[in-house]
C-alpha cells in the first residue's frame, strides 16, 4: 500500500497534527468558534423571523415599554426597561469577570482564576433568576384583555388613557361558572373559560355600567400609540366582537397582542436563557477543575479560555436580544 501513496509535495507545509496548527488556533478553540458561528445563525434565524412577524403586523405590534415595565419591589410603578437594562449590566459584568479569569489563566494564577470564575458563575445565576422573574410577570399578566372573534386583543383604559385591569370594572354575575383552582391541577390543561378570574359576561356587564372605561385596540395611530376608541365605538366593539377573556400569556393567547409576540418572547428569551443555564453548568465544571488543579498540571488554562468564548457569545446574543426585543 505504501507505494500507492504519492508524495504530495506539501510535506511540512500542511498540518500533520504537529505543534503548529491551522490558523494558529488549537483544535478545541477552532471547534468552539465553529460552534459559535452555527449557534449565531440559529439565534439570528429566531430574531429575523421575529422581525418578519413584526413587519407583517407593523402597525399593530405590542409596544415593549408597556409590556416589560416591572421592577422588583416597585409594584404598580411604570418602570419601562430598567430591569432589562440591569440584567444587561449583570451579564456584561459577568463577561468582564470571565475575561479576567482567562487573563489570570494566561499568567497561571490559580487563585485569581478561581475567584473570577466564581464571580462569573454568580453573575450568570443572577441573570437566569432575573429571566425567570421576567417570565413570571409576562405569564401572569397585569391588566388582562378581551379577545375578539377575529383573534384581536382589546385592552381597557380610563378617560385619561391609563390602563385599567379587568378586575377593576368587571361586575360579578350569578352565573353558573366554576373558577379554576390550583388544587384541581394544571391550569393549562383546563378549558380557557375557567382559567380566568372574571368571565367575559362579567366584563361585558361591568363595561356597560362604567362610562369612563374605553376600549384600546392594537392598531397604532400616527403618534405610534395604541388607538383608543370613543365610548360609542367601544360599546359597539364589546357587544359585537368580544368573545373571551385573556389574562397573562401562554403560547396560544396573550393579553399583549398577537399570539406570535408571546411565542417569540418565550422561544427567544427561553433559548437564550437555556444557553446561559448551560454556560453556568459548564462554568461550574471548569471551576471545580481549576480548584483541583487540573489545568495547573496541564500547564495551560486553555479550557478556561474555551468556556470563556462560549460565555462571551451568550453575552453577545443578549446584546442583540435586548435591542430587538426591548428597544427597537
Amino acid at each position, binding site marked *: 500500500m505504501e507505494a500507492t501513496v504519492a508524495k504530495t509535495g506539501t510535506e511540512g507545509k500542511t498540518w500533520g497534527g504537529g505543534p503548529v496548527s491551522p490558523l494558529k488556533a488549537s483544535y478545541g478553540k477552532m471547534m468552539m468558534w465553529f460552534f459559535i458561528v452555527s449557534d449565531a445563525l440559529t439565534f*439570528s434565524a429566531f430574531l429575523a423571523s421575529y422581525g*418578519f412577524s413584526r*413587519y407583517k403586523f407593523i402597525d399593530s405590534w405590542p409596544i415593549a415599554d408597556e409590556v416589560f415595565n416591572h421592577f422588583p419591589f416597585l409594584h404598580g410603578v411604570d418602570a419601562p426597561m430598567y430591569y432589562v437594562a440591569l440584567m444587561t449590566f449583570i451579564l456584561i459584568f459577568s463577561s468582564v469577570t470571565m475575561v479576567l479569569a482567562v*487573563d489570570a489563566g494566561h499568567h497561571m494564577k490559580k487563585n485569581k482564576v478561581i475567584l473570577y470564575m466564581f464571580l462569573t458563575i454568580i453573575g450568570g445565576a443572577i441573570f437566569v433568576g432575573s429571566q425567570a422573574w421576567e417570565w413570571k410577570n409576562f405569564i401572569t399578566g397585569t391588566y388582562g384583555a378581551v379577545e375578539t372573534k377575529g383573534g384581536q386583543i382589546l385592552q381597557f383604559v380610563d378617560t385619561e388613557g391609563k390602563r385599567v385591569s379587568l378586575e377593576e370594572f368587571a361586575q360579578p354575575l350569578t352565573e353558573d361558572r366554576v373558577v379554576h383552582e390550583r388544587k384541581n391541577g394544571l391550569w393549562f390543561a383546563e378549558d380557557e373559560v375557567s382559567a380566568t378570574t372574571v368571565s367575559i359576561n362579567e366584563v361585558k356587564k361591568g363595561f356597560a355600567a362604567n362610562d369612563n372605561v374605553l376600549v384600546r385596540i392594537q392598531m397604532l395611530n400616527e403618534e405610534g400609540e395604541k388607538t383608543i376608541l370613543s365610548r360609542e365605538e367601544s360599546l359597539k366593539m364589546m357587544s359585537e366582537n368580544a368573545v373571551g377573556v385573556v389574562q397573562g400569556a401562554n403560547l396560544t393567547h396573550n393579553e399583549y397582542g398577537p399570539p406570535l409576540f408571546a411565542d417569540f418572547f418565550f422561544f427567544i428569551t427561553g433559548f437564550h436563557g437555556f444557553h446561559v443555564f448551560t454556560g453556568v453548568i459548564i462554568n461550574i465544571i471548569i471551576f471545580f477543575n481549576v480548584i483541583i488543579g487540573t489545568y495547573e498540571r496541564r500547564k495551560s488554562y486553555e479550557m478556561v*479560555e474555551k468556556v470563556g468564548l462560549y460565555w462571551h457569545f451568550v*453575552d453577545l446574543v443578549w446584546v442583540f436580544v435586548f435591542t430587538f426585543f426591548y428597544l*427597537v
Partner: protein
Amino acid sequence: MAHEATHHNEGSATKRIWIVFGILSLVTIVEVVLGIIKPDFLVDTKFIRMSLLNWIFIILTIYKAYYITWAFMHMEHETKGLRRSVVWTAIFLIAYLVFILLTEGDYIYEVYKNGHVSWNF
C-alpha cells in the same frame, strides 16, 4: 493566545478589559436613556423606512458586538484567516436572511392592508 499574552504585561491586558467594560456600559446607558426619552425628532425622522432612533439602536448594538468579539473573545489576536472566516460568514448569511425575511414580512403587511379579504374584525 498564551504566546500572545506573554508579550503584554499583566497590567495592560486588565486595563484594556476595564476600558472595554466602560465603553459597553456607557453605550448601554445611552441606549436605555434614548429608549426612555424617545426624542421626537429621532422617532419622526425616517431613513430607509426606519426611524433614526432604531438605526441608532442597531448601530450601537453592532458597536457593542464588535467590542465583545474583539476584546473579550480575543478576536483581535487571532489570525486574519480565522477572523475573516468567522466574521464574514456570519455577517453575509445573517444580512441575507434578514433582508429576505423583512422584505417578505413587509409584502404580507401590504397584502393584509390592501387585499380584498377581511382579516381584521
